């Protein structure tokens, strides 16, 4: 039950990238989910990762967040922090947060309580038992509620929210954690057009202070937010570049249109 | 009580059958007359006359005579008072099941009081045993001859030795030769001639029998003053070597026996668990009533035997499909009536099916009384396969092992080769996809559950042969079967098989070290710890679908 910020090393991004994924291999029952995958995410960058189904996008996030251990390769957070030695909770405490593909919120708890649980405080058992919100923390929750547009719904159980609202609530929970890296898996799936626009605005506004990795199928959305796009195919990086470069790459066309 | 009498009856029948060919060949009229005359003497009141009658029967060269004498020796020969007729009787619940001593004709069942046993005194019994031995030595069947050798060895005398020597010179069969050599060897050990004794020891070191072990041990003993009883050191040493040789053999036998017991226990576990593995693996349903479905199978066997009391074997064979049908039907009812409302909530199915198990238990208790019912085993399942003096494998366990493998193979083939099997596997791997492909998942669920339950019923038939049938039968096995499924890995029949057998063997290996209960506890603790290491068992399912 170590404390929140007690890490062996401080985050060191002096060389630019905040996430280093190098030579990662992972197979399930002979199926190669990740194949010598190498990828670098810069501090403060908003990166989109696209690729057809089964390209390994979600698996990559599983590896970064400690849910799945790769067969080989290394994953570093900054220069010094080895993520492969940490479990999910430790990775989260270090400042890497994740939104799941399917919106995952605590349906029995209120919107406010959902955010409260995400709040970046000491998350050990005894501290949690005696935890009390102070004014600053309340203000922070209110602030996030405003950002994700759920101030009106603060006391309602999360279970009654619409699909899009649940997506936002989950993004809000990420914000509460005050992360350095946000991994966002399909944030606009099932959203209306207006909702998509607002989500794009939200993500763009976060760029700079945090690194954001977005996995998305909606190309229109990707075009709106991304400056840099990485294409995954069969477990490794196919190409990387601006949206236009990527879209005109014949290999990408081949992969998407089939051959 | 019952099985013992059956065994006698079986024994008689067997000898009778063995001798049948001889009967046909004999000169009927002449020998039949001697037989009748001797038999009436046997029925007489005086022992001297009986003794004469035995001589006469022995001299008759009549195969039937052996059957009569054998029955006499074992106390199965009676006088049917009303008809003053010699009969052979096998004891059953209602009285005696009689057959005519003269020709083996079935005479039906009579009350015990209607007959009078033909008695023997001790002297007569000893002489009868020898006479029979002599007669049997000439029999054409190897088993009978070996039996004869053993009978003669029991009260060995010079006359018997001569007989055995003579037999050895003419005997063609190896096993009978060995048996005779063993008897002669033991006898030779008593000689005063040292080379003779050493030769005997050289011979005996390959005979692992209780008599030899006792004799060899006796050669190692010391008297009260600490002196060896056996004064000859060479004899002592070579006896010691022989004993070591035999003991290493015995250890092998003991190991074989342990493995066999382990496998047969494992077979029971596998039978109990594979049905569960199917419902758990395919449907994610925890069926706590699985044990009670086994209990239903066991009761089906009981009822079947009540319906066909005279045909135990047939009743048992018929019980297999009957039990399958009944348990499968109850299983389908459970699925359609309760479980289908609870899909996707495995913990709830656990609770609801536990409720079902209570109801089934109480139903059986109300119908059949809370007392245990004993189910009889047909002849061919009782007794043991006596491989040698130290190694006997009981038939019922042996058959259960075979049966388990049969059921397993059958199930594997059903899943591999039939349409239902294909659909079941499809649903197990990806329910939604299967549904999208037009597989009627509801029907598949019902049939899968029926199949799993039916196998539980069949397992119950097997259980009825090794344990008492009672309302708590299922409860005793449910925790064990869950352990097997969990240990093997859900949804993998091979895993279940391997897990069942290894847990069975582990249990039997631990038993002599720790005692039965502690062995069981150790196995449970082992599994609890094992689950920590491999939360999805020996052969886990992998891939995306599992996560959901």
């Amino acid at each position, binding site marked *: 039950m170590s404390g*929140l910020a007690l890490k062996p090393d401080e985050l060191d991004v002096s060389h630019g990238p905040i996430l280093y994924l190098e030579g990662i291999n992972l197979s399930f029952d002979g199926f190669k989910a990740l194949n010598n995958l190498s990828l670098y995410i810069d501090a403060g960058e908003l990166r989109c990762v696209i690729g057809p189904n089964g390209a390994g996008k979600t698996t990559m996030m599983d590896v970064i967040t400690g849910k799945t251990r790769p067969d080989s390769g290394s994953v570093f957070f900054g220069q010094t922090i080895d993520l492969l030695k940490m479990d999910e909770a430790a990775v989260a405490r270090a400042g890497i947060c994740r939104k799941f593909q399917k919106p995952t919120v*605590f349906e029995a708890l209120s919107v406010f309580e959902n955010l409260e649980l995400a709040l970046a405080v000491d998350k050990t058992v005894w501290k949690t038992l005696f935890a009390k919100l102070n004014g600053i923390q309340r203000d922070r929750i209110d602030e996030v509620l405003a950002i994700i547009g759920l101030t009106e719904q603060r006391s309602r159980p999360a279970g009654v929210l619409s699909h899009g609202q649940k997506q936002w609530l989950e993004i809000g929970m990420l914000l509460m954690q005050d992360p350095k890296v946000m991994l966002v898996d399909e944030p606009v799936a099932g959203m209306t057009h207006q909702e998509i626009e607002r989500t794009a605005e939200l993500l763009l506004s976060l760029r700079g202070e945090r690194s954001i990795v977005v996995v998305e199928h909606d190309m229109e959305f990707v075009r709106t937010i991304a400056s840099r796009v990485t294409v995954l195919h069969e477990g490794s990086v196919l190409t990387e570049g601006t949206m236009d470069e990527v879209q005109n790459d014949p290999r990408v066309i081949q992969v998407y249109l089939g051959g | 009580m019952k099985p013992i009498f059956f065994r006698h009856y079986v024994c008689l029948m067997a000898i009778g059958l063995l001798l049948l060919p001889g009967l046909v060949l004999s000169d009927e009229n002449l020998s039949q007359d001697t037989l009748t005359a001797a038999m009436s003497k046997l029925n007489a009141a005086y022992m001297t006359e009986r003794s004469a009658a035995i001589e006469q029967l022995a001299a008759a060269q009549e195969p039937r005579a052996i059957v009569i004498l054998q029955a006499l020796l074992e106390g199965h020969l009676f006088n049917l008072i009303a008809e003053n007729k010699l009969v052979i009787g096998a004891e059953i619940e209602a009285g005696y099941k009689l057959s005519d001593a003269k020709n083996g004709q079935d005479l039906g069942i009579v009350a015990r009081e209607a007959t009078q046993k033909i008695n023997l005194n001790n002297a007569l019994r000893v002489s009868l045993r020898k006479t029979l031995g002599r007669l049997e030595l000439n029999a054409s069947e190897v088993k009978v001859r070996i039996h004869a050798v053993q009978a003669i060895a029991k009260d060995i005398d010079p006359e018997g030795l001569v007989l055995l020597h003579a037999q050895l010179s003419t005997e063609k069969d190896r096993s009978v030769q060995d048996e005779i050599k063993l008897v002669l060897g033991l006898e030779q050990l008593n000689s005063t001639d040292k080379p003779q004794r050493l030769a005997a020891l050289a011979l005996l070191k390959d005979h692992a029998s209780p008599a030899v072990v006792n004799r060899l041990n006796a050669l190692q003993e010391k008297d009260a003053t600490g002196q060896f009883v056996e004064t000859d050191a060479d004899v002592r040493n070579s006896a010691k070597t022989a004993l070591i040789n035999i003991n290493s053999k015995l250890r092998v036998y003991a190991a074989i026996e342990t493995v066999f017991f382990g496998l047969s226990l494992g077979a029971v576990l596998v039978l109990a668990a594979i049905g569960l593995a199917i419902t758990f693996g395919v449907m994610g349903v*925890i069926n706590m009533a699985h044990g009670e479905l086994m209990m239903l199978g066991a009761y089906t066997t009981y009822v079947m035997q009540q319906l066909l009391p005279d045909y135990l074997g047939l009743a048992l064979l018929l019980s297999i499909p009957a039990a399958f049908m009944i348990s499968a039907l109850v299983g389908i009812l459970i699925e359609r009536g309760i479980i289908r*409302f609870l899909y996707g909530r495995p913990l709830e199915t656990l609770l*609801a099916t536990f409720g079902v198990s209570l109801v089934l238990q109480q139903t059986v208790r109300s119908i059949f009384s809370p007392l245990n019912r004993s189910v009889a085993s047909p002849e061919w399942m009782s007794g043991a396969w006596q491989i040698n003096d130290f190694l006997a494998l009981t038939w019922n366990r042996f058959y259960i092992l075979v049966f388990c493998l049969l059921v397993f193979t059958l199930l594997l083939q059903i899943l591999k080769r039939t349409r239902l099997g294909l659909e079941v596997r499809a649903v197990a791997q990806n329910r939604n996809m299967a549904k999208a492909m037009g597989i009627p998942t509801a029907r598949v669920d019902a049939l899968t559950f029926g199949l799993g339950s039916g196998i539980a019923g069949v397992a119950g038939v097997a259980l009825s042969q090794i344990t008492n049938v009672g309302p708590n039968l299922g409860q005793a096995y449910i925790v064990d079967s869950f352990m097997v499924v969990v240990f093997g890995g859900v949804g993998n029949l091979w895993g279940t098989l391997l897990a069942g057998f290894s847990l069975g063997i582990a249990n039997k290996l631990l038993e002599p070290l720790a005692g039965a209960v502690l062995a069981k506890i150790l196995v449970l603790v082992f599994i609890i710890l094992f689950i920590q290491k491999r939360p999805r068992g020996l052969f886990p399912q992998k891939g995306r679908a599992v996560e959901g």
Partner: protein
Amino acid sequence: MNLFFQDKLAGSLMAVIACITVFIPLFNLLTPVDSVLHFSAYTVSLLGKYLTFALLGLSLDLVWGYCGILALGQGAFFALGGYAMGMYLMRQIGTRGVYGNAELPDFMVFLNWKELPWFWQGFNHFGFAMLMVVLVPGLLALVFGWLAFRSRVTGVYLSIITQALTYALLLAFFRNEMGFGGNNGLTDFKELLGFNIQSEGLRSLLLMATGLILLLAFGVSRWVMNSKLGRVVTAVRDQEMRVRFLGYRVEHFKLWIFVFSAMLAGIAGALYVPQVGIINPSEFSPLNSLEIVIWVAIGGRGTLYGAIIGAVLVNYAKSLLTGWAPEIWLFFLGTTFILVTVFLPNGILGLFRSQEQKL
């Protein structure tokens, strides 16, 4: 609205329990035997027994109702607490046993044991025994839970190994060599803290103690569940992965609640034993643990007071039915199990609440 109603019901239930706890023992101590207000010793013990079961149900609701761990071995912790109390009571018998041995309980003399095994040392002190009542179940839960939660055994697997745990203990306690009286367990108690165990006064005091401890346990549990820890635990039940990714060590939270619940169960066991006068291995039987689950399911899980209502109702029905027509009891229990899981997933309270919502 919902919350308010819950509170009102919980409040009235607690008031009823408080009344039972205070007034029945008081009446019994103060009024003559033939008075209308005088309850028979049998009724008093029966009520006391129900309340210990209520505490046991409450303990299971913490892990099952709130944390989603369907523990099928809750009875094991109850029985361990009961044995700890039983060991104290055995030591209090002293020379009044059949063999009159001041040091050894009767069954040990019978087994020809010469001295007290090490694990029986200290149980002649009430304080030590009471410490063991919470420590032994707590420690078992700690070790077992640590192993299970750390390697993320969840759902059905967890349920099955908790059942295996209590089954293993059942087998172990049946053994005479274990030193806990084997088959017969511990019984023939004489006195508790110097009071005659059969006396009406002690029975009344025990009822009072049980009621007070139940109220206290309810209060503490309520407080815990209303704390942030309670919300984390509820969140673990619904979305374990999400909680992990928020940076909580889920296994620590599960372990905490599991150990807390085991300790409550142990206390319930300790209160149960002097009121029924015996503890034997059958308390470890998997069936007993499943019965606890049904209490909670019937009352309505995840509410705390639902478990209390369920425990009392089912056991009242049990007393009625086993006295009147024993063969019906299992039919009744079985059918209730089925009906509640299929039709009343939220138990009786769920029924009330959905009514309330309709209005």
